[in-house]
């Protein structure tokens, strides 16, 4: 049994310091790893990252994160990753990590992701430079996610993003903003690499459960969606292998 705790969109800043910590102290009793699905801060400042580091640092399980759009608002993404790294939090951006969980190798590949929309109703890299830059960024980070997933030498492979790979977990959000909430290119990468499960945040008014076209379970763990400090998902590698075959 592999127990994955996950939450996204905690939007921490000094005014919310310490809100989550009481619920996290005993995390090791119910989970083996904690995933943070981006938007860890409100404005993406180093001061806010220090709040995140205090909130999630020194827990009794490994903590693996990706950044979200809020974490890039002050153009200090690298500085945020450094602050979190110093607190023992692994920040993924187009790369992966393999953890030993009770003798099983759990691989996690992460990327922020980006928007663009979903299959058949998505934007194209055509026209103005701004439009091409938008979609090329999504294509680039999706490609990074796919490669990072494929490179994981693990029993279970987990995709972690901030933006959504599927529209199913956006139900509840206005249809008009779907292209700003995620991209099918992320799902395509997840399916191609045959990941076992995918976690994302970003869509506060969305829905927890979804699935890619290829049958990979997707969970929207934005805190307003799961309505708790985190949620725990239990995987059995043997049963996942059976399902894949």
């Amino acid at each position, binding site marked *: 049994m592999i*127990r994955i705790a996950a939450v996204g969109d*905690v*939007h*921490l800043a000094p*005014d*919310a310091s310490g*809100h*989550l910590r009481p*619920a996290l102290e*005993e995390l090791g009793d*119910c989970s083996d790893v904690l995933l943070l699905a981006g938007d860890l801060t*409100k*404005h993406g400042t180093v001061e806010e990252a220090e709040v995140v580091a205090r909130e999630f640092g020194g827990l009794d399980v490994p903590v693996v994160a990706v950044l979200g759009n*809020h974490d890039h*608002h002050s153009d200090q993404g690298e500085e945020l990753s450094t602050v979190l790294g110093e607190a023992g939090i692994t920040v993924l951006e187009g790369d992966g990590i393999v953890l030993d969980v009770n003798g099983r190798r759990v691989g996690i590949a992460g990327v922020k992701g980006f928007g663009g929309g979903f299959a058949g109703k998505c934007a194209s890299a055509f026209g103005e430079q701004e439009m091409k830059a938008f979609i090329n960024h999504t294509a680039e980070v999706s490609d990074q996610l796919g490669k990072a997933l494929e490179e994981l030498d693990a029993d279970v492979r987990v995709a972690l993003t901030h933006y959504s790979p599927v529209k199913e977990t956006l139900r509840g959000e206005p249809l008009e903003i779907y292209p700003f909430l995620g991209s099918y290119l992320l799902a395509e990468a997840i399916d191609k690499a045959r990941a076992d*499960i995918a976690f994302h945040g970003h869509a*506060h*008014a969305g829905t927890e459960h979804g699935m890619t076209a290829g049958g990979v*379970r997707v*969970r929207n763990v934005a*805190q*307003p969606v*799961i*309505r*708790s*400090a*985190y*949620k*725990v*998902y*239990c*995987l*059995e590698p043997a*049963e*996942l292998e059976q399902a894949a075959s």
Partner: protein
Amino acid sequence: MTTDQEPPQYAVARLRRALAEDPRTAEQGVRVDLRGEQVYLSGDVASEERKRTLDQVVHDIAANLKVHNDVRVVEAKAPVGQEELR
């Protein structure tokens, strides 16, 4: 400031953008509904203080509107139970 001449759709759009772009709030997930001179806010934020700040930002832009703040403060407790994926 909203004016009598401004269609409500533009007023709502302006308020939503302000709640997202004003550094005091930076909230993208707050919904704004306008009915006459009553504005209703809904969604989730991380603290009571952030909920109160929404009122201030709306008031700065549209002091003539009465604000009904139905925004919820998101739960920060440990979850009950877990999901087993089989």
